[in-house]
């Protein structure tokens, strides 16, 4: 099933679609309010973009500097060229520690590598601890949004799954009650877990330390109760100096939810004496992206999801319709790099309105890259034959004056004489639209007539 077919399922529930659309737009508005409070907002975006571009242009140097400092801090550093190696490294650490059950805070990278599924096959259970991620995990489905994992659900859905899995009182849909219940159940997990896995928001080359941002405090509860901390990061998470964090911390949550900062901005530099800290640095296709002049800048992404919240297609089709680890506009330019065949439809799931690029805190030209991916994927033969054929026909028609005029005439005549040929449910363009009345003449004909006067 492609994006359009999955989206059709999502929008079958009109009320839910409207709620999804309005809620995400509300978050986008909160982002606007937060951004407008800072006169230097555009300057911050420029700085962020420049700092990321610089770091990417010297990524090898900064990775080595980071590794050197991290090792000096007592952190054990691992490198993984792909998701499989990432999963094997983690499996080995867990087996060395006889760990069968562990807690994990939000990490899009571990989702990308399908870590939970891999560990399940070797008998290790991962408990996701971010509330939204825990909800979707209990429902056995992936997150639909990278910042708001359960945004596709209503409180009734949460109440139902908590009743089934956590023993909640049936029918109690109070968010505070449900949150407290999850808190109680997850606190047990925090206290029992010997190992905690986290993602990384930023890694600082000059200090060899990492920064993790959460509102719930779940990453820190996990890490600081466990004996072993495993942090997983893509190679693009680096920043050269700690002073650069000032720019990114100010941008991240304002772009994501409109908050000035997350409740916890944690800086881990050394393991607590007697404990272990591991860092897994992962490539998994990122160096391929780095090699591409067209798509390199997508590596600047800090996963704020502002582009999701503003996107008219995302808001009205839901995250699951993308069938990708990262949905939304940024996911539509990241995913084809991993699997062009599977994700060939995603760059087309866009109106190219450009709103994503306008809100991006690191100024990725998302809509330009969507357009470039369309061309790349078509050239590589990943688009459906019907689409390619239509494009060829259109290209011929738009390139030949005579053909264009004749097609126009046929179209107007058909619409007048046999409207049911166009106004029928087999024409996908007619499904949600009224077709216009056919004009008596084309603009060209009108122009010729009036020029003579």
């Amino acid at each position, binding site marked *: 099933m492609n994006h359009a077919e999955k989206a059709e399922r999502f929008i079958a529930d009109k009320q839910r679609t409207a709620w999804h659309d309005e809620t995400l737009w509300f978050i986008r508005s909160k982002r606007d309010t937060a951004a407008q409070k800072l006169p230097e907002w555009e300057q911050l975006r420029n700085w962020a973009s420049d700092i990321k571009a610089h770091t990417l*242009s010297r990524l090898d140097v900064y990775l080595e500097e980071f590794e050197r400092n991290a090792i000096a801090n007592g952190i054990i550093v691992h490198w993984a060229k792909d998701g499989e190696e990432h999963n094997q490294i983690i499996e080995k650490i867990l087996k060395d520690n006889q760990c069968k059950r562990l807690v994990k805070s939000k990490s899009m990278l571990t989702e990308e590598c399908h870590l939970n599924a891999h560990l399940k096959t070797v008998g290790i259970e991962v408990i996701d601890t971010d509330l939204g991620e825990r909800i979707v995990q209990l429902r056995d489905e992936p997150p639909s949004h990278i910042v708001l994992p359960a945004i596709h659900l209503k409180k009734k859905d949460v109440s139902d799954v908590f009743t089934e899995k956590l023993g909640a009182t049936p029918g109690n849909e109070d968010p505070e009650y*449900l*949150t407290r219940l999850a808190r109680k159940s997850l606190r047990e997990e925090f206290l029992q877990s010997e190992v905690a896995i986290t993602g990384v928001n930023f890694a600082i080359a000059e200090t060899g330390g990492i920064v993790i941002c959460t509102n719930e405090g779940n990453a820190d*509860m996990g890490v600081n109760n466990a004996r072993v901390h495993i942090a997983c990061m893509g190679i693009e998470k680096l920043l050269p100096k700690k002073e650069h964090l000032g720019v990114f911390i100010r941008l991240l949550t304002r772009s994501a939810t409109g908050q000035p900062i997350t409740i916890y901005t944690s800086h881990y530099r050394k393991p607590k004496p007697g404990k272990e800290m591991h860092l897994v640095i992962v490539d998994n296709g990122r160096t391929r992206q780095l090699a591409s002049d067209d798509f390199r800048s997508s590596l600047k992404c800090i996963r704020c999801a502002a582009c999701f919240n503003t996107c008219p297609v995302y808001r009205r089709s839901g995250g699951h319709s993308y069938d990708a680890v990262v949905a939304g506009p940024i996911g539509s330019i990241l995913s084809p790099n991993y699997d062009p065949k599977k994700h060939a439809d995603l760059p087309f799931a866009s109106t190219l309105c450009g709103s994503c690029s306008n809100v991006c805190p690191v100024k990725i030209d998302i809509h330009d890259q969507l357009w470039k991916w369309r061309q790349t994927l078509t050239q590589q033969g990943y688009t459906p034959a019907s689409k390619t054929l239509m494009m060829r026909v259109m290209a011929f028609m738009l390139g030949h004056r005579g053909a264009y005029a004749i097609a126009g005439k046929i179209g107007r005549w058909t619409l007048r004489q046999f409207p049911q040929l166009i106004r029928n449910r087999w024409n996908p363009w007619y499904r949600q639209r009224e077709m216009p009345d056919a004009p008596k003449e084309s603009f060209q004909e009108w122009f010729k007539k009036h020029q003579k006067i």
Partner: protein
Amino acid sequence: MSSRQQILERIRAVRQNEQKLPDELPKRMLPLEELRERFIVSCSITGTGVHVLSSMEEATFLFMQKAGSCSFYIGPGLPGNNSIEDPVRTDYAILKGEFGVAENNAVWLKESSMGDRVIPFASLHLYLLVSEDDLVADMHEAYHKDLIFQEGFGVFIAGPSKTADIEQSLVIGAHGPLSLDILLITNH
């Protein structure tokens, strides 16, 4: 060739010209009055309680009143510093913050002031003490401080833990403390 070597080689193979870093980032200074005002406004937005007090003793006194007969912990560097019995079952904790940020009410807490790394997250209620002389305007000024990354662990805390993952309804008290109070020590 190791994965490390492979990754670094691949990056070097596509190395572009060096992109320029921005010139020095700003370091804003604001007068004390304005800093205090902004800090207090930021606290009100995140649901953080603020108490303006004149001494550390006054702060710990207030804290002890709030703690009542519950289990409590007074962190290192504060009058009455006690030993932790069971860090994950502490009801009330008061810790010494190093500085506060006016734009977002974040307070920097260093590891050596926590007693145990888990205290700021596991305690049911958290009190942070900050001197108004140690307020800075924004995160740029904050990250110019040597305190950041100085110890093995440090954290900015900007409110009680919270979540809105259930239908976007804000719930205060997710996995961390259910409440945060900042005790702002004034010298005037």
